Structure formats: C-alpha cells, structure tokens
C-alpha cells in the first residue's frame, strides 16, 4: 500500500502544478484589479493608481507574475553587493531597468511557494500563510463539527431507513433527505438566525466569540452556542446525503447471503443490522469522505460568510471579491492539497474497511 500511496503522490505533482497554472491564469484573466477595487475614485489620479499597481507587481506580464509567485523573484533581479540596490538581473526575463528611467528596479524579495513563501496579501499587507492560519481554526471547528454531526445522524438514519424500508420512518426520512438536500443552506441559516437568534434570543447572531474590548476568545467549549446554527445548517445537507447513501448500500448488504445466514443462525436483527450489515454498508461512505472534505471546504464559503465566522472560506470569498490574488492562490493551494489528500484518504479507508480490496 505504501508503494501505491507514493505512486499517487507522485501522480499528484503534475496535477498540482496544472491547478496552480490554471488558477493563476483565471485570476489574471479576470477583468480589473485590486487597484480599481480599492482606489476607484475621482480624487485618486491615474499616476497614483499606476504607481500602486507597480508596487504590487500586478502591472508585470503574466509569466513574470506567475514565476514570481511560484519560484520567487530573488533570482530574477538581485543585489550582489548588499547596498540595497539591484545590480544584477536575468536581463532577458526581467531587465534591471525595465521602465527605462535610468534607475534600477528594486531587487526581488519573494521566494515563491516552492520555497514556502506564499507572498503578502495585497490588501492586508500580511503574509498569506499568516492570514490563512489565523482563520483555519474556525473552519476546522465548523468542518469537524459538521462532519461528526452528519455522520452521527446520517448513518443511523440510513440504516434505520433501510431496515424499515417502505414504512413511515423510511418514507419520512427520504422526504426529509430531499428537502434538506434541496434547501439552500444560506436561506436555512437566515431562518435559524431569525427565529432562534432575533426572536427567541436563544443563540447569538453570528460570530465566533462574544465581543469584548481586549479581543479574548474563550475555548470552544465555552462558546459552543456560536457554532450551533452554522453546524446544524451545514450538516443538514450532509445528513441527507449520508442517509441516502447508507440506506442504499444497507439495502444491498441486507440482501446478501451472509446476512440471511446470520439471521438463520439466530442472531438478533439488531445485531445483524448494526454489527454485520452496517460495517459493510460503510464502504460507499468511505469513498464519499474525500469529496465531502472538498465540499465542506467550499461550502464553508457561504456558511462562514453568512454566520460571520472568521474562517478560511470567508477570506476566500472576500479575497476573491477584492481580487486579492495572493490570498486566493494560497487558499487554492490548500484546497488542492486537501482534495488530493482527501481522495487518497478515501482509498486508504476503503482498504481498511473492506479487507477484500487491495491497492495496487
């Protein structure tokens, strides 16, 4: 299996570079820039906007911007004598005096993502990784709570629906699954906020911690109420998905010979259903985990934005709107790696759950 995992990782490398190139190209092709977003006002002159664009490097051609982001620019133009002024450059790629004003361009200071430098946010002027890491805990809290809730509810509901096939519980479960799958989660979240937050005042309306002057955020267990509404809403769709998958696979398993054998041997239906059938019915669920991690990542964009949770999904949204490309690309990288690893995890789980399967 280790050989298989290594092979998959090696196969992922060109996919990863393909994703970065395509994503960067798409962002570059998008009309306008962060400069128009931030400085579109009659009292800001064209020269000022051009200068700000040059400072961010977004007036460079695509290949230079991509190279700088990928591999840095300290090797494109550098300061060899340590006087703070660039004196050497790969002239054919990045001339020392690119604008022809007789003054050398500043030396490159970026190392590129291949050397762990994700650059600085155009807007926050902070390292991208710092921004992402600061927001990661909120996304992890929401993601893990959502995954656990949806598994804890979706799997038993799916199994019970299968064993009560055609009866009230099954019919109700299937109807509810369709409803929760179809309802836009932002709408459901608004309703929860309105009913339980505004009207009944049972839960706080958005946010992650109680506002306070010194920016103190208590531990998760002291502020679970903030996670309640977004988790319920986010999990609703996944509960529907899991229950339908588990129901289908349980029905298939319940028709297998070994289940009939187990029942014929006198095992109780509960033991058969939950001990023998359920484990085998879990195999399709395992294959779902990879895509679901990706779904949670992307779904968090809406949930975090509406519920004012300071997560990675929310900065993905705001950065995309503001055309803060370094942050968007940082999140794309994390999502890409997460997706690749998520699918790999699915395959590994597949083997662990079903001993008949061997990865080659």
């Amino acid at each position, binding site marked *: 299996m280790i050989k298989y995992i290594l092979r998959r990782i090696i196969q992922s490398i060109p996919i990863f570079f393909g994703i970065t190139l395509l994503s960067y190209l798409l962002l570059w092709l998008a009309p306008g820039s962060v400069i128009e977003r931030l400085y579109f006002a009659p009292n800001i002159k064209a020269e000022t*906007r051009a200068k*700000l664009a040059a400072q961010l490097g977004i007036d460079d051609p695509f290949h230079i911007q991509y190279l700088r982001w990928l591999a840095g620019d300290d090797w494109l133009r550098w300061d060899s004598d340590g006087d703070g002024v660039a004196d050497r450059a790969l002239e054919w790629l990045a001339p020392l005096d690119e604008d022809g004003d007789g003054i050398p361009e500043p030396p490159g200071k970026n190392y590129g993502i291949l050397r762990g430098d994700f650059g600085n946010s155009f807007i926050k002027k902070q390292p991208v990784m710092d921004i992402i890491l600061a927001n990661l805990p909120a996304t992890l809290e929401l993601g893990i709570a959502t995954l656990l809730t949806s598994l804890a509810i979706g799997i038993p509901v799916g199994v019970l629906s299968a064993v009560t096939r055609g009866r009230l519980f099954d019919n109700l479960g299937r109807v509810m699954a369709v409803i929760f799958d179809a309802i836009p989660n932002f709408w459901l979240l608004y309703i929860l906020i309105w009913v339980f937050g505004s009207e009944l005042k049972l839960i706080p309306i*958005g946010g992650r911690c109680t506002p306070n002057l010194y920016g103190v955020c208590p531990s998760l267990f002291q502020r679970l109420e903030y996670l309640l509404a977004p988790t319920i809403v986010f999990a609703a769709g996944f509960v529907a998905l899991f229950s339908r998958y588990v129901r289908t696979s349980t029905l298939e398993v319940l028709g297998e010979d070994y289940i009939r054998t187990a029942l014929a041997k006198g095992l109780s239906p509960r033991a058969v259903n939950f001990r023998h059938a359920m484990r085998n019915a879990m195999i399709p669920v395992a294959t779902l985990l990879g895509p679901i991690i990706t779904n949670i990542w992307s779904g968090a964009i809406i949930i975090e934005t509406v519920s004012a949770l300071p997560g990675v999904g929310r900065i993905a949204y705001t950065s995309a709107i503001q055309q803060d490309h370094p942050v968007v690309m940082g999140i794309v990288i994390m999502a890409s790696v997460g997706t690749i690893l998520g699918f790999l995890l699915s395959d590994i789980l597949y083997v662990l759950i079903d001993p008949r399967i061997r990865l080659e």
Partner: protein
Amino acid sequence: MNKFSRVLLLALVALLVIGGASAQEGGILIGTNFGGDPTNMNPLISNNTVELGLNEFLFPSLFNIDPVTRAPMMGGRNDQDNGLALDWTISDDGFTYTFNLRDDITWNDGAPVTAHDYQFTFDALASGKTSSPRTDVLQSVESVEAVDNRTVVVKLKVNSCRVIEELDDFGILPKHHIEPMLDGDFTNIDTLEYNKNPDITAGVFNFGALIADQQTSLVRNSNHWMSVSPEGYIIRNVPDQIVGIEQFLAGEANSVGTAGSASVPLPRMQEFRDLAEDGQFQIYEYVDDGLTFVGFNLADRSNPVNGQDEDGNSIDQGKHPLFGDVRVRQAIAQAVNYDDIIAGAAEGEAVQVNSFGTPALWGYDASIEPWPYDPDAALALLAEAGFVDHDDDPSTPLVATEDALYAEPGSEFAFELLTNSGNVVREAAGTIIQDQLGQIGIAVDFQTQEFGALVQFLLGQDFDAIMIGFTNLDQDTDARNVFTPVGDLVGGGFNFVSYSNDRVTELYDQALSLPGCDRTERQALYHEISNILHQELPWWWLFAPFSMYAEANSVQNWMPYAETRYANMADIAISP
C-alpha cells in the same frame, strides 16, 4: 419626619445620585462593520471606510471640520475630529499658510503632539515611497516646515483653494515612535507592525485589539484631556448586512454601521423609520454625499484617444454618433420618469439631482430645476436632432436622417447601457430606463458587467453609456479631473466621457485659484459650472440616495451629523 428618617432619605437620594451617575459612566459602544477588517490603521495609508472612521478616534489631524458647515474650523473641540490648529493665516499672495497649533495634546505615551509630527507625516507622503493614495496635495504644496513645536508653515507652488482640505487629508503620525522603526527609509512605512497595532496614538480612544474577521476594539484613553464616558468602542466585522441588522435589532450591537458609515440599506429604511417612531431606537437621516448617474461617451468609442497631448493641445477624438449631439442627451434626460426610477429602483429613498454633486455638498446648486419627465418634448428634440419614427411604429427604433449631426443616415437609434452586476438598485434603474426609452423608439441594450470589467470599459472609454455611482465625494465640488481635458486620459482618467467646455475649464481654474478662497465667491463659480453641466449633460444626473444612521436607545446624548456619526463622543453615555 424625624432625624433618622431625614438621614435615611438623604442617604437614599445620595445612593440614587451615585447610582444614576454610574449608569452614565462606562458601557461599550458596539457597531457593525460590513466591510473588511481595518488592517491598515496608519492614517497615511488607510483607505477603507472603517479604517478612516477609526483614524478619527485615534489620530490628531491638522484642524477640525465644522459638522454643520463642513468647513475647516479653527480651535474648537478635540473630539472625533482631533484638530490641532488653533488658527491659521494665509499670506497676501495666497502661497504661504501658517498654522498655529495647540500645545496641550499629547500622545498616549506622554510625548507632546507637535508641528514636527505633522512635518514628518507629510515628508513620508512626499517621499513617494509609501502606498498612500493621498497624493493630490503634492501637486500644490512646495514644502511643509515645522518652525517650532507649535507652528507649521506650508508653502505652495501653485495657488490652490483646495489645499487647506488636502492638508488635512491624513492623520498625523507620532514621529518619535515611527521614525526609529524606518531605518531611514520611508518605504518601510507600508509594512510596519504599527499599521495593524497602532499603540501610540493621541485620540479619545486607544487601540485595543484586532481579531481578524471578527472585531476591532478601541479602549478609552483615560489620559486624554477630554476623557469620554464609554469604556470602549467595538466594531464587529459582519460580512452579511442582513445578519448585522439582526444583531442590532436583537440588541447585540448599539449601531448599524460604524463611525464612518451609515449602512441601513435602502429597502429597510421605512421599517427602521417605523420602529424608531415606536421608540425602539434612534435614527438620523440625511442625503448621501454620492450620486448615481449615466455617463454618455461623447467621443468615438471605436478609437479612444486622450483629450489633449502633453503640451495641452486638443486631440480630435471624433464624436459619438448619438451622444455627440447635446440635443440627444437632453432628449434622453426628458424621456424617463425619475419618480419611477426613484420609487422602483431606490425604494423611494433618494432625491433627484440636477448636476454634479448632491444637496449634501456646498458647491451644489439646489436652485436648478432637475430635468422634467416630458416624452413629447424628448421626441421633438430628437426629431430636431435628425432622429425620426420612419414607420409610425413606436415599438421599432427611431432612424437617423440626413439631419443627424454624427449618425449615419438610416442607422437605428440604439445604444449599449452598462452597469455593474450585483447592484440591485442600478440593475432595476437600468431596466426602467430600457423600458421607458424603448417606448419612444430608443433601443437600449442594457447589460450588467462584473465591476472590474465595467471599470475597464469605463477607463478604456470603450462604451456608449455607463450607469455608475460615486460615493464620499469631496466637499469641495472641484471636478477638474472629471469634466476638463486634464482628466481625459484613456486607461486612467476620470473624464471618461471626454467632455470639454472651455468655459467650464476656466471656471474650475478660477474657483481653484481664487484669491482669498472665499467660499461664497467660489460657490457662485461652482453654481455657474453646475448650470452648464446641467444643460450639457455629459453625465445624465439621476439621484442621490438617502442615508440613515441607526443607534440604540442605550446610546444617550447622541448628536449625529451627516458629516460625522459621533460628533460629541465626550457627551455620549451608554446605559446598561
């Protein structure tokens, strides 16, 4: 009443007084911010509304702004406007300004705020090494010199009546704290940790903490000479406006918006009015300092060129086949019912404007009658301009005749109207315009574009007509960048409609360099410009929206102005 009873009564009264007084002290003001975090609180490079709003509580500025007249004000309070200038003089030739500063303001580390701090901040801006967008002032200022701790002398290279406002366009940095961190290079200002954590400030609040994408807090500066009552001010970062408003209605926040923004959305204003009338909270309404308009491209869009060359000579830009003729623009301005636009698109929460600016700006001439809705007059003007209904079918577009000045004879009267997608007010207004112009035979291809794409069309001067809006217009309605050839630069200038009128250019120059800069005299010049712009319609003036502050009843003694939400922070008390 015996002695014991009297003592008991006095004690009770004393308790009540003390209790009442303590209810007036402390409390935290909580606002909601629908924009991004204030991550650059350095007043030189701050740019978004929330940052600028916070700056006013943290940093000193050169002078105060009168909240009523919105004019620079000598002396006065040192509240949200942390003005330093007690007074100033202008030399006879208008080229030298001398500011006399107060000497009783200190940074929160005890160091005095001096003229040297102002000069240091200006020098940083003038270095051109920072990402500050406030470079307008550099066009007119030759030098800024701190003669002593209390005197700043500003020398101009050109006479500019706007310079007084431009000199106050940024807060003042603590030189003694910032300079040692720069290693002699102003470039380092952009990346100072201070920008995210301004520890040395001089306002009524100190900076508290910033939790990314959650909240920013300010804490009362007890050492300020005019200590305020609220213990602090928290701004919650809530990206979704609906959620932010629910937080306010549920009592989780004291205000909708922040110090720098109003933020009650147009569709909910009437609901807020009703609730305020019921006494549930307080509101304050005003006409916004921004307007929505349609810009007509007056030049040939197929070959966009600058309005003038480097020597200032005019360049032939061609004429737009339709909008090159002022009669066409005037006809369009009379062919649409503004009441329908304001009621249907702006929820009735706007006022029709007649020229550049809004009633909130002192240069605006409210006496000019806006264009009326008169489709018959519009058709007559179009006929005069050579566009006729050739088939007596109003559902088909008008057609140009030989009399049309710039359109090909036989060509249909059709144009493309663009606006930015996601702006529901403009999308609705565009649909109404499309429908009503269609009724008199003008075919409008109304399209929405993503904002970045729209800006590219706009600055590239590659459009027929664009509906857009500007907010936070400067109080001084000087718009040389917008309506003179100086700003007619393809790719970056704001005279994207290529408008040129020698008289307008002359009037702007006069208003800018008027000896003595008397506001009344300048206002008269701006009014003349407004009249010309009203008639010539390089922009089709639509409306200025209303704005509304909403504040919880717990915020006592609240006295807002359009200019500033908390003009009297010193008097505000937060009740439990």
